[in-house]
């Protein structure tokens, strides 16, 4: 009792008690957050307004809510098609990138072989080349392979964006795993492929999740590469490129654009919410290691 009495008498004198400090911090942070999400909320709100109301109605809440924008975007503007294109490119590139980066990272992290450091050096070097410079050669390469005009080509090219970083993440993680685990499975007569699949990869779960989330985000939102590759082939467009087409030469369909943007961001937000915990673990783990 007397303790609280002392504490409260002190808090009357000192304006900035720890508790009040925390409250002030929270208010400031909440303010910043609000600024951050305002455009997003505005966009989602606007997507339910008819075009006529879009700029006249200053309030966030639609007077006459409608799904019209969504219907127009999904069917007329071919968003349905773009959505599944993007889904294909994203899922495909996530699967391939994760597997390839994990396998390569496993070998780089745990095996010694001649030329390893030269190889690592070359790969790290590619990190310094801006994406813009490689788009034309990549397009050329895909064309020569005969997949320049297919979603497969786009998907494979999308795999390349961050794979070096992912590989290094995996390599760093696998390096820390004690070699006795692999030796134990060797003694057990488990081959290298099964050891990778059943022992090493499950242990690298935090990195797997990190790579899945980052690659999915990147592939889903990628703009420049799909823009270049689908220039001659509108049916192959992804969402990010497709949305851009709402901006005609003389007229911008803001309603359609907000609706399709909302469609575009929902899956990625859901994925993030679903994997959030592991994702943060993975990043923390990667920094630690």
């Amino acid at each position: 009792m007397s303790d609280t009495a002392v504490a409260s008498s002190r808090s009357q004198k000192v304006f900035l008690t720890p508790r009040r400090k925390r409250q002030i911090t929270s208010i400031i942070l909440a303010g910043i957050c609000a600024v951050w999400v305002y455009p997003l909320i505005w966009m989602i709100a606007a997507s339910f307004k008819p075009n006529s109301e879009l700029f006249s109605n200053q309030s966030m809440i639609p007077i006459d809510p409608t799904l019209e924008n969504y219907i127009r975007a999904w069917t007329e503007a071919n968003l349905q098609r773009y959505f599944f294109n993007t889904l294909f490119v994203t899922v495909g590139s996530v699967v391939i990138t994760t597997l390839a980066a994990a396998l390569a990272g496993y070998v780089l992290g745990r095996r010694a072989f001649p030329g390893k450091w030269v190889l690592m050096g070359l790969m790290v070097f590619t990190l310094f080349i801006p994406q813009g410079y490689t788009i034309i050669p990549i397009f050329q390469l895909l064309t020569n392979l005969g997949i320049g005009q297919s979603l497969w080509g786009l998907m494979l090219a999308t795999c390349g964006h961050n794979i070096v970083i992912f590989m290094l993440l995996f390599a760093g993680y696998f390096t820390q795993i004690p070699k006795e685990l692999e030796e134990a499975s060797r003694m057990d007569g488990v081959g290298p492929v099964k050891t990778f699949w059943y022992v090493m990869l499950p242990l690298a779960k935090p990195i797997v999740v990190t790579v899945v989330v980052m690659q999915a985000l990147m592939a889903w939102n990628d703009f420049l590469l799909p823009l270049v590759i689908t220039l001659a082939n509108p049916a192959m467009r992804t969402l990010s490129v497709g949305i851009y087409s709402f901006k005609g030469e003389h007229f911008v369909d803001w309603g359609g654009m907000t609706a399709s943007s909302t469609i575009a961001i929902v899956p990625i937000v859901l994925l993030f919410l679903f994997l959030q915990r592991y994702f943060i673990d993975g990043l923390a783990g990667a920094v630690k290691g």
Partner: protein
Amino acid sequence: MSGVTLRNVKKNFGSVEVIRDVDITIEEGEFCVFVGPSGCGKSTLLRMIAGLEETTSGTIEIGGRIVNDLNPSQRGTAMVFQTYALYPHMTVERNMGFGLLMNGVSKSLVKEKVAKAARILQIEKLLDRKPKQLSGGQRQRVAIGRAIVRDPEVFLFDEPLSNLDAELRVATRLEIAKLHSQLRGATMVYVTHDQVEAMTLADKIVVLRDGRVEQVGAPMDLYNNPANVFVAGFIGSPKMNFVDVNHGQLPDGRVLRLDGPNAASVATIGFRSDSLKPADQGNGMISAKVSVVERLGDAEYVHFQTPWEQELVARFPPEAEVGLDATFEFELSGKIHFFDANGRALANVMLASGAVAKPV
């Protein structure tokens, strides 16, 4: 079940010779312990038997088959690692059955084998746990269980107790001894740097130093008849006392009279703490000033300084109340070991009667 034979086995890491020309025969069903100081190549030798390290030259035979070119899993061995090496993301049950499952053994048979091993090790209640939820001793049992499940001809242990606390180490040591008699016929090769573990567990001890075999023998053999100074000093606790003999003289210049054909070659004499007996004033061989007394309950180890300032240790009965700085005279009774200038044990030497003049 079968024995293990190493012939002229060598191992180089790059240009460094780690194992130099080792010959060892381990009989079927034997409990063989490799012991030696850190870095002497014990683990390397064990890993060569397991097939985890390649053999540079020489042959390794298990159960009559030369296994040099066989994969670890084909050698009929199972290994228990010092760090346990349990798969962290698998339950105890899956840890133990993993190897069999991956090799196409039916689920029901694996379950049966795991249950049997768990019963032997009394870890039936832990089968659903992950390694993180186990104590060090329990993890150790699971690691042993994983080896048992494979039904190996030869068990390989690499310092399996070194991560346990002292009490648990003693308990687990007993369990491993029990296990050996329970798994009748299983050959076990066990690596440790702890000579007490070696003495208590082994049928046969192999003392290694610098990649070479110093001596092979039954524990009491090594204790009673060490082949050289190194083995004499390594086996037995407390360490054997050594006193230099220079041209028949003790370090203080007194003459030590020895009998026997090899008496002239003696460069060192060795005696264990229980070979020192207090003597009457004026009749002893070594006079001593007590520096440290260790009371172990069943004995007292009295460390003392000789007039030539060497620390030696004598064993006293527990009730002996020896004070610090007390002075004694000791005589030598019981087994004395003699070594030549190269440290090799010499036979056919004994102390002559009245070997030394009274102490200085």
